[in-house]
């Protein structure tokens, strides 16, 4: 049997003796498996992520500038942007307000069923979006249990922009709760005690002490919910009714163009959406780095 331990030890010693190496390079070799894990990760990333992404961008660059501009700025595309961005923004705002409320209630208060509710908050992560779309549509349709109540009030949800926003709120619900919750849990109670000692009311303490501390987390959750809502497709197919120019979101328009063999048009829209998500991803990264600095 090969004595791997002895080999590993000898390697460690040999590497440690190469004093010209920087400390982190020496450290790298202490544990085995660098080459193997790099090979697996690199191969998987190349085949599954990088190659398809590159393909998409190459396809876009094969279009002329004028053609590209026409594809991303025709009237139908503009209407789709308006709905996608508007509904995603509305949903993310609702989630910011109620997500903060839910996080606060779950962290600060004790009431029966709290553990169960805490577990169920993640449901939108686990439930297939097609199921969410199906059940929300049935609930808010004219003859559905909720739609029947709203109909006489003149509020139509299913097959309207409002319905799109409702589905996007469902899809993005866990993000704000799950980013704000840990920060609230870790918040030092002595800060609030100090504020109270100095005569601040509860509301002032929340506004001036608690809120600034959780604001970066809130903003992160908001951005994540917004980004997730922009890309959502499964639930919207059911609830929007898919009327071109009226209740058509961008991902739906991409699919429609693809089904009409308008590959250039589909790709051009996809690149606009991809660029938006990359910007949002960058914003989240900056926010998270800020939060780390703040906590340290």
């Amino acid at each position, binding site marked *: 049997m090969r004595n791997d331990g002895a080999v590993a030890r000898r390697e460690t010693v040999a590497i440690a003796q190469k004093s010209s190496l920087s400390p982190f390079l020496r450290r790298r070799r202490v544990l085995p*498996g660098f080459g193997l894990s790099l090979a697996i990760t690199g191969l998987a990333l190349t085949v599954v992520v990088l190659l*398809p992404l590159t393909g998409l961008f190459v396809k876009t660059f094969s279009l002329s500038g004028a053609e590209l501009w026409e594809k991303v700025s025709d009237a139908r595309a503009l209407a789709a942007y308006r709905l996608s961005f508007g509904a995603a923004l509305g949903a993310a705002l609702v989630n910011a307000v109620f997500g903060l409320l839910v996080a606060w209630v779950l962290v600060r208060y004790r009431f029966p069923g709290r553990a169960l509710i805490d577990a169920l908050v993640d449901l939108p992560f686990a439930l297939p*979006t097609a199921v969410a779309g199906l059940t929300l549509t049935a609930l808010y349709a004219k003859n559905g249990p909720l739609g029947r109540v709203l109909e006489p009030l003149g509020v139509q949800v299913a097959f309207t922009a409002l319905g799109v926003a409702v589905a996007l709120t469902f899809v993005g619900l866990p993000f704000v709760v799950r980013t704000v919750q840990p920060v609230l849990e870790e918040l030092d109670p002595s800060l609030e005690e100090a504020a109270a000692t100095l005569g601040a009311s509860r509301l002032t303490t929340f506004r001036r002490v608690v809120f600034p501390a959780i604001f970066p987390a809130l903003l992160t959750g908001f951005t994540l919910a917004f*980004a997730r809502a922009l890309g959502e497709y499964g639930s919207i197919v059911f609830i929007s009714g898919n009327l071109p120019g009226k209740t058509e979101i961008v991902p739906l328009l991409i699919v429609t163009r693809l089904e009409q063999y308008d590959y250039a048009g589909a790709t051009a829209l996809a690149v606009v959406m991809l660029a938006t998500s990359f910007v949002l991803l960058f914003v989240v990264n900056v926010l998270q780095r800020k939060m780390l600095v703040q906590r340290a």
Partner: protein
Amino acid sequence: MRERAATREPVWVRRALIAAALAFLALFLFVPVIAVFASAFAEGPLKWLSAVTDRESLSAITLTLLTALIAVPLNLVFGVAAAWLIAKFRFPGRSVLLTLVDLPFSISPVIAGLMFVMLLGKNGPFGGLLEAHHLQIIFAPPGIVIATVFVTFPFVAREVLPLMQSQGNDQEEAALTLGASGWQTFFKVTLPRVKWALLYGVVLCNARAMGEFGAVSVVSGHIRGLTNTLPLHVEILYNEYQFTGAFAVASLLTFLALVTLGVKKVVEWRAAAT
């Protein structure tokens, strides 16, 4: 009345906030889930049973299981490798790698599907090659598997990586010093310490693999009995006004989601206990 602490809200404020939070969650979470089961069983358990065991439903269940059976193990191997690489080593390009691992989360499923249609479809760079060998990927089950691998790519790595990182390298280094081989160290030292996070990552990956709609819809071509997964079958039934059938199939997926959440809770308890 007892005086309340200065850092607590008055009782009526507390109750109002709890009520508002519960009302929001009830409207957006509880009612929709209850509605799934209520509608699925609206015409009795026999109708439900016949809807989920109908020939097309069974073929959708088979394809969904097959897809998860391929995608989840692939992502398990990849996720553990990526977590090991990023958590245990410092090297140039590490943060770029981390961003790339997370990338599928920020790409719309529809765009993911589109990417594979462009790459592997008839008109793509590999289209000619695939056609020459009579390999159909797009609008066929292999395309569904590939799209699913893409959308579930980050799940395992995402759950395991932070834990591995926070645990540091000390125990692994000790094991190696005591003469354990690399694989022994991994299976006997590293793996037992991350097993619960790993389990949750796998369960989450599986839930998404079985429930993915957008990406799979784009690459599937909607061929009944051949490229139909459970979520796509829900849409087909809905479009044909077979609402009870659609909800019956949806209830299977909802049950899966609830099991996933249950596993998460167990994992959290286990993690808190150790």
